[in-house]
């Protein structure tokens, strides 16, 4: 059992506020991922939870107990660092033993635990190797093993896979997910990898400049981004945006006029928005469709063929570029004229302040 609660956490370095009042509840066994652009404060927030950075103001509760002033080693946490941070002068066995030894666990019990963890992580052949003699993936496993063996209430990960190559990263991602299911420990995971965030998280926290932009399940963020920032940040390739003029709305949707004169009736509500307001329309590349003819048309500028899918970059008649993700076998070529269908149920509308219009119906997977 371990819940983590952040209450209006703030961090100031010298005069600069880096974390600007973050509140968040993490349930027992939950896998929470912090994402956000570089420098947004993900690591700082994680380190504040770990106790490696002082908390300037606010409360950190673990299992309901205030932990602000508790030593890192006494918070019941274990952390896996991006650089692994193994003790270079100790072999794998001693690396895992260090924390247990400090905690005063008897030798026999230590041995049993370490052997069990080494078995789980397939580290048995390397128990008496120094970190310098291991590959990146093996070091990563040792770092994870060192965390697991202490049986912590909460696991903290700071971009643990970013030093691995793509293939190994994919493999470790699956292993970590499996491990989390098996151990069922509360986990906080920092990454800037979309795929890691989407596939591993129960809950994603999107941060920007020390502020929470949105908290939600991966599909909630995907289908119902709260604002332009989240819409742009979640999803790859990123969502297309183009300007439009709000014309009016009712309970079933809002209609907007695009720059080429065509109109869209999007199923989102628009309380308090005046007709004539400049809004932004967003639609993901995977939701745009190539059509034989239609009101929205343009010329193909670039084609990226990735095998299974093709990304078609279309320059619209009004000058905007719209990326379309389509079938790998599509025959369209550069410089041809194409028309696009923008399915209204997949369009998002954003007010001038960046906030999204509320969808009339929640997506079934993001209820």
């Amino acid at each position, binding site marked *: 059992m371990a819940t983590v609660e952040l209450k209006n956490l703030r961090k100031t370095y010298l005069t600069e506020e880096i974390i600007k009042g973050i509140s968040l509840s993490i349930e027992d066994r939950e896998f929470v991922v912090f994402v956000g652009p570089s420098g947004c404060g993900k690591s700082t927030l994680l380190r504040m939870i*770990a106790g490696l950075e002082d908390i300037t103001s606010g409360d950190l509760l673990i299992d309901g107990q205030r932990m602000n002033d508790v*030593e*890192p080693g006494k918070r019941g946490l274990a*952390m896996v660092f991006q*650089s*692994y941070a193994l003790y*270079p002068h100790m072999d794998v066995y001693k690396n895992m033993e260090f924390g247990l030894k*400090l905690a005063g666990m008897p030798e026999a019990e230590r041995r049993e635990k370490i052997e069990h963890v080494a078995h789980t992580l397939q580290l048995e052949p390397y128990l008496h190797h120094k970190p310098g003699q291991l590959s990146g993936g093996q*070091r990563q496993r040792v770092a994870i093993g060192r965390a697991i063996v202490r049986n912590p209430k909460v696991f903290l990960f700071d971009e643990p896979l970013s030093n691995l190559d793509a293939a190994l990263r994919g493999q470790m991602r699956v292993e970590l997910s499996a491990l989390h299911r098996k151990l069922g420990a509360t986990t906080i995971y920092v990454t800037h990898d979309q795929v890691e965030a989407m596939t591993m998280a129960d809950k994603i926290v999107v941060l920007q400049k020390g502020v929470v932009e949105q908290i939600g399940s991966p599909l909630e963020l995907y289908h119902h981004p709260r604002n332009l920032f989240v819409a742009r940040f979640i999803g790859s390739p990123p969502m297309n945006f183009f300007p439009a003029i709000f014309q009016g709305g009712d309970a079933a949707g809002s209609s907007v006029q695009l720059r080429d004169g065509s109109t869209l009736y999007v199923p989102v509500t628009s309380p308090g928005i005046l007709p004539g307001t400049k809004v932004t329309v967003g639609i993901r590349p995977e939701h745009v469709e190539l059509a034989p003819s239609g009101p929205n048309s343009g010329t193909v500028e670039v084609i990226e063929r990735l095998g299974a899918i093709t990304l078609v970059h279309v320059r619209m008649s009004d000058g905007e570029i719209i990326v379309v993700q389509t079938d790998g076998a599509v025959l369209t070529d550069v410089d041809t004229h194409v028309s696009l269908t923008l399915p209204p149920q997949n369009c998002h509308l954003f007010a001038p302040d960046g906030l999204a219009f509320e969808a009339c119906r929640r997506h079934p997977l993001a209820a």
Partner: protein
Amino acid sequence: MALKTKTSTRIGVTILGWGIALWLFFPIFWMFLTSFKSEVQAISTPPKLFFMPTLSSYAEVFERASYWHFTFNTVIVSVGATAIAIALAVPAAYSMAFMPSKRTRGTLLWMLSTRMLPPVGVLVPIYLLARNTHLLDTCTGLAIVDMLTNLPIIVWMLYTFFREVPAPILEAGRMDGATRWQEMTMVLLPLALPGIASTALLSLILCWNEAFWSLNLTSSHAAPLTAFIASFSSPEGLFFGKLSAASTLAVAPILVFGWISQKQLVRGLTFGAVK
């Protein structure tokens, strides 16, 4: 970058290297040679390179002064001063390297600036302090002064070595439940050991050869080897044979020690933990 260096350049660099090495080594070599000459041979012009070696200078040196007494003092003072300096400098450098504040840089520079003052500038106050605390002509007194003069350099060097240790490794220790003290002794020290050893050796050498304070703060009881050498450059006239013999005897232990320990020192810092 050219992978192959031209042969002529290589030969040139080799010759230059050997030249500098010999030039640096020559005084020691000459001292060593002179110590085996008679006093007459020692001052003959042109200087003789080949001669019948004699141990007469050594015999006289041993007869006139108690070499072992001076050596004992030097060892006590150097080892004592080095041990205390390292013990004080490790926590200082640790906090500066891993918990820097706005003033860390300034503090380091200020500490080093104390070395910019010529020691003679503080001779009188230090002499009076030593006298009033009854530390004149004691190994303790000399060790304290030696320790304090070297402390800034030692902190500076340790700081540089500690900075090479990736902070996450220490943080991992803290997460594992280590106290600050355990983090320093069980994680940092083993990693920085080669650096600490080099620093200790340097401090040992500096203390071993320190003459100014030795000559001014000691007379007989606590006089170290530098005073032993000085006692052979007496005003009655220079006896180069005996002076060389005394000097050879004085530098031999530290030279041999440095030679033996160099293997450990050049190994350098090796980190396999990162990436």
